[in-house]
């Protein structure tokens, strides 16, 4: 295919048009008679002038420069890049869902409210929580919401001393960032060699100033923290609450539930576990579930089921308030709802079982070639620590870049930080044995290449549309928009 390297602004031609509106059919009034001149812009916009065909070709060619789950294997650890079922897209684009104004009379939106109500019930059952709010827009937004709930809980009891949140050093950077936005101080604790919470380290920081602990289980190494009940008990005894970062729910559906492990607040990523597409960065959805005593703090409005209809209830005096516009990313919720309907209780459990089986299979085949810091049963993902036969100059980044040449999206790299040269692999349940085997063969081949010709890897990739980028000058001399050359 011919190489295409133009910006939409560079194909603009004066006088071209990509739209046609009906002529204005009301009597026109001179605009200056309606709006005083001092309120009108003096400048003309410089939006592109292109035909409909230009727009279609341009963005189609851009899409060809992207790699998605539909293109191929995407073993990006902690991101759960499973297949995005197409029926979900169809259902989410039904006009009677998409063409609804959020402020329409509730009588006219009963179907949407019922869908949301039922989805939150299903998510409550899957997570073992008592009630779920579908409002948060993303995982980080779910964290923010959950932490606000924790703060509101303590303050409502008149306990204003609890200003600290415990975050393990293995946690994603978003955890401490979210806690900080909610006005908490961060207390970092060490992880043990399994990436799990170090009990002594935890005990040493528990006191009356601790509002809660943020954790994911399976942990960021993909290992189930067997002490989870003891951990949550310890935090509870100290008066704190335990927050579940739902990034890793895909390993345990139908097998175990955060609610049964002692978690008080959870968020779930519908764009991970529940198959909604990532969209190149968003939109996602990060519903938050809570235990009974925290229900009253959930963000408003709450969708309630009455005898024969559904309503939006804003009258919740202890609620943390509103955390976003309207009620949640509805279009994403439709997709997750369809996924749960399609999979059912049996399918969700099977999905977790196969996600775990696939990950353990890949781990067992790769550990002879790549360093495996902890050799025990993993859950849905596992973390390698670079090449087993260390070749000093070949880094994890080089391995990732070489994978691009072989047509794969690389795994997550350099996370979690507690493993040097981390390569975090999450195959998900939607990949076949053949796909995994092909990827494994490539990983083995790269380990051989690293020994024979390290320079080959240092300069990779070769086969991509663009090669390694100069990220340092991108940040030092930022060019953040197109400027027409004069």
């Amino acid at each position: 295919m011919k190489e295409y390297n133009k910006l939409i602004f560079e194909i603009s031609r004066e006088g071209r048009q990509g739209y046609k509106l009906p002529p204005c059919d009301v009597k026109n009034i001179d605009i200056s008679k309606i709006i005083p001149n001092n309120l009108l812009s003096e400048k003309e916009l410089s939006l592109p002038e292109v035909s409909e065909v230009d727009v279609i070709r341009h963005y189609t060619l851009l899409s060809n420069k992207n790699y998605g789950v539909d293109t191929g294997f995407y073993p990006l650890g902690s991101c759960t890049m499973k297949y995005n079922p197409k029926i979900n897209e169809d259902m989410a684009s039904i006009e009677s869902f998409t063409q609804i104004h959020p402020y329409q009379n509730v009588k006219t939106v009963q179907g949407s409210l019922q869908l949301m109500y039922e989805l939150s019930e299903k998510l409550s059952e899957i997570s073992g929580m008592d009630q779920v709010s579908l409002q948060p827009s993303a995982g980080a937004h779910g964290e923010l919401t959950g932490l606000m709930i924790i703060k509101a809980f303590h303050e409502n009891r008149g306990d204003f001393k609890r200003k600290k949140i415990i975050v393990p050093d293995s946690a994603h950077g978003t955890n401490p960032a979210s806690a900080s936005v909610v006005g908490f101080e961060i207390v970092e604790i060490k992880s043990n060699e399994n990436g799990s919470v170090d009990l002594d380290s935890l005990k040493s920081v528990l006191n009356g100033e601790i509002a809660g602990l943020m954790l994911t289980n399976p942990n960021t190494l993909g290992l189930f923290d067997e002490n989870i009940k003891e951990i949550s008990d310890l935090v509870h005894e100290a008066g704190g609450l335990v927050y579940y970062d739902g990034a890793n729910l895909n390993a345990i559906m139908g097998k175990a539930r955060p609610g049964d492990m002692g978690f008080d607040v959870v968020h779930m990523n519908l764009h991970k576990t529940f198959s909604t597409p990532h969209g190149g960065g968003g939109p996602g959805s990060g519903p938050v579930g809570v235990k009974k005593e925290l229900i009253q703090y959930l963000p408003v409005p709450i969708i309630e089921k009455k005898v024969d209809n559904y309503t939006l209830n804003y009258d919740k005096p202890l609620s943390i308030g509103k955390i976003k516009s309207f009620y949640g990313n509805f279009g994403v919720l439709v997709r997750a709802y369809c996924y749960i309907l399609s999979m059912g209780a049996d399918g969700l459990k099977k999905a977790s079982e196969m996600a775990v089986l696939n990950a353990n299979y890949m781990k067992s085949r790769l550990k002879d070639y790549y360093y495996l810091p902890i050799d025990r049963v993993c859950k849905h993902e596992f973390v390698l620590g670079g090449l087993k036969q260390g070749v000093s100059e070949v880094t994890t980044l080089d391995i990732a870049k070489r994978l691009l040449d072989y047509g794969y999206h690389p795994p997550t790299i350099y996370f979690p930080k507690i493993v040097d040269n981390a390569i975090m692999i999450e195959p998900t349940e939607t990949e076949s044995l053949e796909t995994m085997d092909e990827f494994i063969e490539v990983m083995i081949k790269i380990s051989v290449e690293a020994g024979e010709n390290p320079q080959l890897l240092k300069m990779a990739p070769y086969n991509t549309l663009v090669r390694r980028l100069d990220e340092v000058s991108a940040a030092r001399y930022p060019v953040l928009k197109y400027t027409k050359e004069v």
Partner: protein
Amino acid sequence: MFPYIPNTLEDEKFMLKQIGVLSIQDLFKDIPDELKLNRELNINPSLPEIEVQKHVKSLANKNKSTEELVCFLGAGVYDHYIPSIIKHLVSRSEFYTSYTPYQPEISQGTLQAIFEYQTLICDLTGLDVSNASMYDGSTACAEASFMAVAHTKRKSIIVSKTVHPQIRKVLYTYTKFKGIELVEVDALDGVTDILKLKELVDKGTAGVIVQNPNFFGIIEDMTEIQKITSDNKSLLIMSVDPISLAILKTPGEIGADIVVGEGQSLGNKMNFGGPYLGFMATTTKLMRKMPGRIVGQTKDIDGKRAFVLTLQAREQHIRREKATSNICSDQSLNALTAAIYLTTMGKQGLREVAYQSTQKAHYAFNEIIKLENYKPVFNKPFFKEFVIEGPQSANVINDKLLEKNIIGGYDIESNYPEYKNTLLFCVTEKRTKAEIDGLVTVMEGIK
């Protein structure tokens, strides 16, 4: 079998053997028995596609959409025309099934589209730099208030009561938890009360938030507000309707420091409230304080132009608790939608959308106030929305309109009790004269 799970029983056996365990259950032995869910989840059993379709369509059929009803409702979400090509391009799965573009070599499609989006937002707003988009208009506004506090090292934010009540509620939640003081400045005759603003602004004011056109549809005179803000070295944060920027003075011309807004009307369906996108742009001076993802242009090692996520030193995965925000995503697909919309409509089209909306809104306004029982609430220049006082409560009027398949205006009284029996109507370019006349006829019959 499940269509999304390819491995067969044979595959399972083969893999178990390779791992060296006997059964899948052996892979879950690390979960203590007392924590295992020893029952099936209490949700439906799996359903084939045909059944899922039937069920979900039956839910959709319980709704009444704006395809069946004529919509005169706005209040932040707008029924503007959406070109067909958007659906086709945004449905390309190379776009929607990809992750955040962490591997730029195979993500140039998303990265370039965002770079173009940023350029388009800068052009629209007249400010220097845009981020890659945020959750929605209200959270973008809350993030802007954090940015103002971080930049000025002051602790208080002033927001006009003419800002959308929902945005103010989200702001209230965010600032309360962060420990920022939020002060509301009164409205006077439908616009921000300049004298009161002057009294409130002081050395503790990090930023002043004003919406334009404001919640009542009125175009605020920003000149004095800008002066008050800059004289006090506070930041001026504007929340704007992007469509209006095709004709109204831009935040750049006004001298705003940060501009945010709800990007839904840029080609995104109303979707019962989401997903949308919040846009945010600012000055070069404040660039490194801006939250969210940002795409920059650079070169690859062969010297070829390429795009990459940049200025990441601001972000949570590097800065952890010291980050400018906890946001670690954008609304990429909605930003792509906005970019395609702005590109398709182009310079002429966006202006025509703004122009026709203004004309039709004024036609509707003039026809409604001719009616005996209806009168205007404010006497100020407006864009595509206006407030009318009727003979009954908004609920009663809207119920009667709904009987005739018309979605009426937003109930102003629900948030501003001082304005009894008032509705905020919105008229976009999609409404025809016949539809407007139909609205007026039904309203005339409501006494």
